């Protein structure tokens, strides 16, 4: 059984994993990182999106062995010092979640979208979130939240 080393939310783990073990199951069932939920088996819904070495991946479609030597950030490790990330706060402010099941993945995808395009238009936000499905919000408030999150994050970067 392959042994992998993976850093998750700042903590280093060494784990023996079956080659077929999905990354999301490693996170949820071995490391107790249940903030990342599973919504589908086909990587369509995006609920399980996490950051792998700074880029968003759908953790139901990655194998645990692929995370060997990598740095994983889940929704539980996103904020700093007990406070929420600006994007998490923006989702709260804009009422961009209802049942909240898609939310961790949606927040991760939104942050990754801004990595590539820090000031996206509404169209760019909608296209950027195409891989993350929500059944509650109709996306209107999610789009607003991403825009607000972008402003807050921009401010965080530009403010000394």
């Amino acid at each position, binding site marked *: 059984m392959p042994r992998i080393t993976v850093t998750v939310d700042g903590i280093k783990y060494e784990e023996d994993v079956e080659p077929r073990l999905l990354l999301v199951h490693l996170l949820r069932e071995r490391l107790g990182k249940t903030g990342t939920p599973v919504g589908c088996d086909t990587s369509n819904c995006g609920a399980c999106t996490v950051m792998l070495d700074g880029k968003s991946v759908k953790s139901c479609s990655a194998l645990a062995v692929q995370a060997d030597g990598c740095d994983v950030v889940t929704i539980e490790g996103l904020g700093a010092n007990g406070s929420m990330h600006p994007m998490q706060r923006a989702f709260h402010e804009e*009422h961009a979640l209802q049942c*909240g099941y898609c939310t961790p993945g949606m927040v991760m995808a939104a942050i990754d979208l801004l990595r590539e395009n820090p000031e996206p238009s509404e169209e760019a936000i*909608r296209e950027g979130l195409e891989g993350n499905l929500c059944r509650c919000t109709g*996306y209107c408030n999610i*789009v607003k939240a991403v825009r607000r999150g972008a402003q807050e994050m921009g401010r965080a970067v530009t403010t000394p």
Partner: protein
Amino acid sequence: MTVQQEIGRPRRRKEDARLLTGRTQWTDNLSRPGMLHVMFLRSPMAHARIARVDVSGARDLPGVVAAFSGQDFAAEQGSLPCAWPVSEDVVIPDHPPMAVSEVRYVGEAVACVIATDRYRAADALEAIDVEYEQLPAVLDMNEALAEGSPKVHEAGNKAFSVKINSGDIEAAFRDAPVVIDRTYRQQRLIPSAMEPRAVLADTDGEAFTLWSSTQIPHVLRVMLAVVTGIPEHRLRVIAPDVGGGFGSKLQVTAEEVLCLLLARRLGRPVKWTESRSEGNLTVHHGRDQIQHIRLAADADGRIRGLRVGLLADMGAYLMLVTPGIPLLGASMFNAIYKMDAYEFGCTGVFTTKMPTDAYRGAGRPEATFGIERVMDELAAELKMDPVDVRRRNWIKHDEFPYTTISGLTYDSGNYEAATEKALALFGYDKLRAEQADRRDRGDPVQLGLGVSTYTEMCGLAPSRMLGESNYGAGGWEHGSVRMLPTGKVEVITGTSPHGQGHVTSWSQIAADALGVPFEDVTVLHGDTAIAHKGMDTYGSRSLVVGGVAVLKACDKVKEKARKLAAHVLECSPDDLEFAAGAFKVRGTDQQKTVQELAYAAFTAHDLPEGVEARLDSDATFDPENYSFPHGTHLCAVEVDTETGMVKIRSYVAVDDVGKVVNPLIVEGQVHGGIAQGIAQALFEEAVYDAEGNLLTTTMADYLMPSAADLPTFDLDRTESPATSNPLGAKGVGEAGTIASTPAVVNAIVDALRPHGIHDVEMPCTPERVWRALRERAQEERAQEGVRQ
């Protein structure tokens, strides 16, 4: 101290922080010491006799604790319940949680494996040997009813029939100047809540606890006790965080029953979590009706009578409220319109498919679609504006309360105001001008405008009325308020939220009623050991029934606090006035806050005669009548006549949901509903092949809209308070879904009318629109040919 009014205030949700930071308790997050994982082997055939099931191969594999067939549980698994026998002639077939001798849809469970982890369980499923003797699948409702059709059940394929008549329908149609006659298909939908279902069952040998991703912990507890024989007082049901339901978790499922029975048999906790592809096969489906609608009208557009004939696909079995769903629409086909006569007939039909049941609006979206499409056809026939046809027929604002032809009494509403507001926001006249211009220019991209004026029947429900419709339970709701010694407040509700923000809204209600800070209130729910009474969450009933129960409980607490305050302040209760959370002796500065009194009631050192310790109270509310939100939705679409592509250009919704507790939550619910209604119009459909295999088992095949597929919706409101409850609220959960589907399809047909098209079957995919255009063009060419 100034106290800000909480009701009506756009409060950010108390629920959010946990959900945003991953500190959630989805059922699949939960674990118990020694927990085992269950997986089910499911039928690959739509209809077959089970000749043999051999699970021994699975039992020998590493990590496998047990494996069972349906036969192994035949004696104890009972039958899944149907609580709504709608008619005298209803046939409720035996519905074993695991099939014993026959399977009737693809996905029906035939065996299960219990293993130490889900990977081992999945491996072991492959070692189970099942021998099937295939029987013919029965998929089409008309064919199912035809003589000589293969039988889904021994008793035949008719589940029930219902007929309702009001007024002289023959007279209404006799010599009617206009008769519109149309047949519409409500395609089968897959609810697709983001959280797949999950169940965890545990026992200490005597008592049982079941965690389930359910909307209905209270109903589920009663039903599980009845089905399994586990005494109700030894069974606790918990709905932890639930990731959406939309009716699909308003069910008593095979998996819930079986997990409980497996925990009993093995004496260990067992968990089952469905995969999405398993869920698409086995979460009950929605809609699936064929509607034959005939409408008779005068030459000026006044409706004389409406005849509705429904075929409703039950699927293979009747589940919790399956036969009741089309009947919920029975009194809504006449919608907001006045007419002389109405006839409704419905036949429920068994087919070899997944059963249908409640889904997002449950019967009312179907009815609204039927009438709103036909109203547009009437307008086209008479060359009237579709809005004008509606104006001619709807109930005017000064005619409320109004008893409709189907016997419901609408308490309040103002269809004129909502419609005028929506038309202005939409820019109706300007868009009509653009439409005319595009038509004149022969623009390949045509503009279509769709209107939908709707009402819905919310607040399920008055128990008396449910009794009249033969429903197996009441519709009351429970609320409980307890002031803690420190003055903080715990509200307990019998409703069971799954995204609707009850904790926030109920906090607002209690904060206002008791005059305490919003932050000082918490809300408990979803656990039958804590929220010990309730009827749960569905049918937009939570606020208008459950929220009112909380309000009533607060009033009772206040009355008790008044007696205590009078005692402490040594005055008569009548000398006290209540303001800003305090009882004040009139004309003095002497006062006690309700939060201070909570401590006095806790110490109980000095209570007045007849007043018991602790400041708390319970209340139930059972409304006199349903509530009737309404509204006007308008949709503009651009239809590319060369490719069939439909693009929503703008969408306006003006809803009247009565008094609003939290405008943010109302808006969010409407957004989500509209998205779903648009999805039915344009994208979603459960598709079975001729053998009864579901072809849309994944999210890659079943097309749910993403952010890129939808526009931003423009919302506004009017407010006609409900008179059937003291909050004046009407319910909002289903409004968007009910209104939007016909608005979108009306817009598409409006765009295509100059091409001779008067209907496109849902979902109106580019291919369907393109085919409709092509077929129409071919017909025209053929007619030209005949003429020449």
